[in-house]
């Protein structure tokens, strides 16, 4: 019985808790990508850099607050920096919309042209961000590091395995819950949100119904900006901020959006968790887990690991390929062209 409890704790500590946090970050990212896809109809390669931009602003604000002695310990200072990061990111996206994307919208160019434009934006933002903040890794999580420490948990329960929950992980999950709820409420209950869905569903009919495309597009970028800023900051808070990682992050985020069904907000959120949990389950070494559960003589010698942890990103790609082959519309029917 103790063995089973140990095995479950092991899974919780190494898979469930980290994947909930990582899945939340992916879910927010994928939601942003899917909203752009649903309304503006292109795959936004610059989304990773938009997240990175939001994180950079949050870090700069954290440094500012720290230098003037503002803190909300035991919570990380980043939480009070977040509103500034959201506003600045939204501001950036609205500028990009006005000076870059709007023109192509009015020309009704093909999605692939839009995609290349987003590559240009990605390049530009990447350079800008690295110029401002540099390329080295930055940790900006302060305040209390743990909610439960592994050692405390062991003492509390008497188990051999410990469970640790970091503050940043808890904050990530809670913030995601709040933001996702708010966005779904907005999309399903408000006049503006519904008109966004209508525009995504049937652009021509939306125009006939008197829905103003400019408004819809601006509101979309505002939501995307908020999502990107929060997703990026939470990821950086949890794992440390390194600009080039955000470029790689685009892949699992796209995978999450596609696995869930591109253009489908619920799918994007679920997809985020699907990707995060698959990555963890496939790269987890089950040796200790099995040692707890199996009789001693069956205990495995090797690590019992399907794929080494370095290949986490490969998992999201393989899932992506499988979904493309088996069910191109994703788990929750998204748009297909």
């Amino acid at each position, binding site marked *: 019985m103790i063995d089973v409890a140990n095995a479950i704790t092991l899974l919780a500590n190494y898979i469930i808790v980290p994947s909930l946090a990582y899945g939340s970050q992916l879910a927010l990212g994928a939601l942003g990508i899917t909203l752009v896809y649903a309304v503006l109809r292109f795959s936004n390669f610059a989304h990773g850099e938009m997240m990175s931009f939001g994180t950079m602003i949050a870090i700069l604000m954290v440094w500012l607050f720290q230098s003037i002695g503002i803190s909300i310990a035991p919570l990380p200072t980043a939480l009070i920096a977040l509103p500034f990061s959201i506003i600045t990111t939204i501001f950036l996206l609205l500028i990009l919309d006005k000076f870059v994307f709007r023109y192509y919208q009015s020309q009704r160019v093909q999605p692939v042209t839009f995609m290349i434009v987003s590559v240009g934006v990605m390049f530009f933002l990447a350079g800008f961000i690295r110029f401002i903040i540099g390329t080295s890794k930055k940790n900006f999580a302060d305040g209390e590091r743990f909610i439960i420490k592994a050692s405390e948990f062991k003492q509390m329960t008497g188990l051999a395995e410990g469970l640790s929950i970091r503050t940043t992980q808890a904050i990530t999950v809670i913030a995601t819950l709040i933001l996702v709820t708010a966005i779904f409420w907005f999309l399903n209950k408000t006049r503006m949100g*519904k*008109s966004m869905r*209508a525009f995504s*569903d*049937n652009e021509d*009919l939306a*125009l*006939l*119904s*008197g829905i103003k495309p400019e408004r819809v597009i601006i509101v979309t970028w505002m939501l995307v900006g908020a999502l990107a800023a929060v997703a990026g900051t939470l990821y950086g808070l949890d794992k440390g901020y390194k600009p080039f990682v955000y470029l790689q992050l685009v892949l699992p985020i796209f995978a999450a959006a596609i696995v869930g069904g591109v253009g489908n907000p619920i799918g994007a959120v679920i997809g985020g968790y699907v990707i995060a949990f698959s990555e963890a389950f496939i790269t987890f070494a089950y040796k200790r887990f099995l040692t707890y559960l199996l009789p001693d003589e069956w205990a495995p010698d090797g690590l019992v690991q399907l794929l080494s942890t370095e290949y986490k990103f490969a998992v999201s790609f393989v899932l992506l390929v499988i979904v493309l082959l088996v069910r191109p519309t994703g788990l929750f029917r998204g748009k297909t062209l």
Partner: protein
Amino acid sequence: MSFFVGSNMYAGYGASMILNGCDIAVDKGKIAVIVGPNGAGKSTAMKALFGMLPLQKGSVFMDATDITTLRPEQRVIQGMGYVPQINNVFPSMTVLENLEMGGFVRRDDLSDTISDIFDLFPILKTKQNQPAGELSGGQRQQVAVARALMTQPKILMLDEPTAGVSPIVMDELFDRIIDIAKTGVAIIMVEQNAKQALQIADTGYVLVQGENKFNDTGAALLANAEVRQAFLGG
């Protein structure tokens, strides 16, 4: 002058003219039906009347006001409703949300209009929380018409509302359209099912190559041997 008039309309795509001086008119509470062979310019006439295609000559009047230069969404505000032939609902949104989007330009309370529409299309009331894309073809057409009615239009334009639905559903749709007309709405409709449509028409237009070939009451056109011979299949 009738309540709604498109007079001497010339329009087309690029160099090729499709409408060559076509006239359409309808009064409040009346049904006008446009029939004609394929490529006669029926849908083009509808687009021209609704402002989706600019007129190169001619004009459109509503209630004796010239609306020729208004954009489609402005015409919606002026009291026109339009039901496209295809892609005429928001498929992932519920029936109720489709109606709300239909009334998007209205800032007042929509609930009275919605309950009126549910009286007219009782089936939609029972399906109000289902996504429109999951409904049957006939029900989806009802949603499409209902969506256009949400602005309480004075004139309703329908582009082949019965395309692809069964004869029973078609009859029911026509009944609904008569009901709508009875509330004082002017209706202009393009139809492939010419015979059935002319039966409910107050005025019928037979369009050939963008011109009015015949123009009479529905009953008269049905009785006209030449029209029967050439356009109604005997």
